[in-house]
C-alpha cells in the first residue's frame, strides 16, 4: 500500500526527520489560509499516488496567498494519470542549494534492507541508475545489527556530503530506517533531501510503501488507505479475497492460481488477443467466488469475450462447472465464453458446460485460439 507524501512526511517528522513547515488542504480556500499562515513563498503539491505529478503540472510555486488559492484551485480539479487530485500539500518553499537522494528498500537477492544514496537527487532515481550507475551508492543493513554509524559516514563521504552535515544526515538516516522497520515498509524514500540556503538538511519530498502482508499489525496505516489508488473493481476484488489487476485488452480472464493466470494472459497475447485483466480466483472456485469474479470482469465494458481456465487439482472440475453455471444464473453475461477445465473429473465438468452451450476447450492453446476468435480475431 502506498502512502501519500503528506502522510509519509508526517511519519518522517515523528521520527526526527526535518521536513518543511506545511499542511494538507482539501479546498483552495484552505490552501490560501495555510499559505497566509506560513508567510512567504509556498509550494502547492498534488497528493496523488502516481509518479510524474511535476511534469503533469501538479506542483506549483506561489509567492502570495492569492496565488496559492489559484494554483490549489487548478490542481484540485486535475486528474493525473487517471487519478483525481483530492488534496494538495502546501509547504513553505525551500531555497535549495543541493539535492540528494536517500532511500531504503529490501534487496530481494541479498535478502536484507539496502540503503541507496546519490548526490544526484530530485530526479527519478531509476533514471540515474540507468544512465549513471556509478553515481549510486548502495549499503546493506544487517537486520540483526541495524543501521551502524560507520555505514552512514561511508555513504556521506561517497556522495560528497560536506562534513558539517554528517551528524544531521546520520540523524535523518536513523530516522528513516526506524520508519522503514516500524511500518514494515518495502520502500521509504526521501527525494530530494536538500541542503537549503540556510544550510539545513531537509526532506522536501517523501515516499512510503508498506508491505500489504504486514498491514494486520499496522491498523493506523490501513486507515490511511486512499481508495482512489484502486479502481472500484480492484476494491471489490480485494473484499472478496480475489486478486485482480485491470489491463487494457478485450479478453477477460478468470483463472485459479497467480502463475497460471499470468500464463493464460501470455498465451492470449501469443495468439493475437489482448488480456483485459489478471484475475486469480484462488482455490476452491465455488459458485460465490466465481460469481463475484464474473461481476468484476464484466464491469469492464471493453471485454468482448471471456476465458475461464481452471486446473482442478484438489478442486474437482465438475464442482467448478457447477459453480460457473450457478454463477451465471445470478450474473447476466451475454458475451461468448470459453471454458477450459483440466484435472480431476474434467470430462464430467466439460459435459455439464457443453450442455449449457458453452464453448469448451481441452488444451490451453485451443482455449486461447477459441477465445481470441470469439472476441473478433487477432488485433
Amino acid at each position, binding site marked *: 500500500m502506498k502512502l501519500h507524501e503528506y502522510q509519509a512526511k508526517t511519519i518522517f517528522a515523528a521520527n526526527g526527520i526535518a521536513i518543511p513547515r506545511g499542511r494538507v488542504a482539501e479546498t483552495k480556500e484552505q490552501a490560501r489560509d495555510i499559505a497566509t499562515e506560513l508567510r512567504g513563498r509556498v509550494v502547492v503539491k498534488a497528493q496523488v499516488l502516481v509518479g510524474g505529478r511535476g511534469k503533469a503540472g501538479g506542483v506549483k510555486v506561489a509567492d502570495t496567498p492569492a496565488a496559492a488559492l489559484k494554483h490549489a484551485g487548478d490542481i484540485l480539479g486535475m486528474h493525473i494519470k487517471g487519478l483525481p487530485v483530492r488534496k494538495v500539500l502546501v509547504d513553505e518553499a525551500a531555497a535549495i542549494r543541493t539535492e540528494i537522494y536517500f532511500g531504503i528498500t529490501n534487496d530481494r537477492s541479498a535478502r536484507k534492507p539496502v540503503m541507496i544514496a546519490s548526490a544526484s537527487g530530485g530526479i527519478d532515481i531509476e533514471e540515474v541508475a540507468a544512465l549513471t550507475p556509478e553515481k549510486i551508492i548502495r549499503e546493506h543493513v544487517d537486520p540483526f545489527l541495524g543501521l551502524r554509524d560507520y555505514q552512514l559516514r561511508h555513504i556521506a563521504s561517497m556522495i560528497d556530503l560536506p562534513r558539517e552535515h554528517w551528524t544531521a544526515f546520520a540523524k535523518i538516516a536513523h530516522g528513516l530506517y526506524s520508519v522503514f522497520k516500524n511500518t514494515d515498509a518495502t520502500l521509504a524514500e526521501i527525494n530530494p533531501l536538500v541542503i537549503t540556503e540556510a544550510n539545513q538538511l531537509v526532506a522536501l519530498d517523501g515516499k512510503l510503501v508498506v508491505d500489504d502482508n504486514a498491514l494486520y499489525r499496522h491498523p493506523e496505516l490501513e486507515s490511511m488507505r486512499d481508495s482512489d489508488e484502486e479502481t472500484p473493481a480492484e476494491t471489490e476484488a480485494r473484499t472478496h479475497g480475489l486478486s485482480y489487476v485491470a489491463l487494457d485488452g478485450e479478453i477477460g480472464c478468470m483463472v485459479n492460481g497467480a502463475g497460471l493466470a499470468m500464463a493464460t494472459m*501470455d*498465451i492470449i497475447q501469443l495468439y493475437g488477443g489482448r488480456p483485459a485483466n489478471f484475475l486469480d480466483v484462488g482455490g476452491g472456485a465455488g459458485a460465490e467466488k466465481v460469481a463475484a469474479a464474473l461481476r468484476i470482469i464484466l464491469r469492464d465494458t471493453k471485454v468482448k469475450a471471456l476465458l475461464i481456465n481452471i486446473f482442478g487439482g484438489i478442486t474437482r472440475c465438475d464442482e467448478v462447472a457447477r459453480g460457473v453455471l450457478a454463477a451465471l444464473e445470478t450474473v447476466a453475461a451475454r458475451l461468448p465464453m470459453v471454458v477450459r477445465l483440466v484435472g480431476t473429473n474434467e470430462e464430467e465438468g466439460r459435459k455439464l458446460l457443453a450442455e449449457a452451450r458453452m464453448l469448451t476447450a481441452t488444451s490451453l492453446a485451443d482455449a486461447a485460439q477459441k477465445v481470441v476468435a470469439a472476441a473478433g480475431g487477432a488485433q
Partner: protein
Amino acid sequence: MSVLVDQHTRVVVQGITGREGLFHTRQMIAYGTQVVAGVTPGKGGEWADGVPVFDTCKLAVEATAANCALIFVPARFAADAMLEAADAGLPLIVCISEGVPVQDMILVRPYLDKCGARLIGPNCPGLLTPGSAKVGIIPGHIASVGTVGVVARSGTLTYEVLHALKQAGLGTSTCVGIGGDPVNGTSFLDVLKLFEEDPLTEKVVLIGEIGGRDEEDAAAFIADNYSKPVAAFIAGQSAPAGKRMGHAGAIVEGGAGTASEKIAALKAAGVRVARHPEELPALLA
C-alpha cells in the same frame, strides 16, 4: 533416491488441526507419506486422524523422530512456526502459508541458515516425489514416476506442467515448488544443484515468473557447465510494470525483473524456453 523427500521422510505438520492442515494431512497419508506428528499449541495430547498432536515442535520431534516440518499456520504465525521448527532441529522445513511479511522473512531466513535448516517456501505448494512421498499440497495423481525434475515459483501453473508431462508420457523425479514470495528459502539455483547431483533426474523443467533475479542467477549457473538439459517457461510476458500479479514477488520494479530479461538470460545459457506451458514436453524430447 530423489531429492529432499522420500518414503522415509517423517513429517510433522504444524497447524494440523486447522481446515487446510487436516485436509492435506489426509491427502498426504493417502499418498503414502509418513505423517508422524502434528503441532497445534493448546491441543497437545489430542489426535488428528490418527496422528498424535503435540503442543510444541520440540515435543513432537522428541516423541516421533520427525525430520521434516510442514507448516499450514496463518501467515501472521508463520515466522514463529518456522523458527520453532528450526530450533527443534528439523533439517527440512516446508512452509505453505501465504502472506508472510517480508520483514519477517528477512529475520527468519538467516536464523534458519544458522541452524542448518533448509526452507522451502513460504507461499509454495511444497514437494512431490511421485510414487514415494508428497509434503505439501501438490495433487499426487497429476504426476507420474519418471526422470524430469521440476522446479517452480507457482502452484497451479506447476500442476498444469506436471499434468502436461504426464499426458506426454513423461514422469517426474521430484517437483519442488519454491514459492512466489520476494524473500524465500530455497532458490532455483539451490534446486538445480540438487537435480544435478540426483541420479534419478535426467532433465529439468524450470517454471519462473516476473520479479526478482532468481531466474537470471539460475541461468548463470546453467551456462557455467550444467550437465542436464533444461527447458523453461517464464510467466508474465504480458504483465504491466509496477503491478503485483497475485504473488507478492511477481512484480516488475524499476524496469527490472521482466519476463523478457529472464527469457533472454535463459536462452543465452542454452535453455530451451517455451512460448506457453504446453510446449514444454516437446522441448524435453
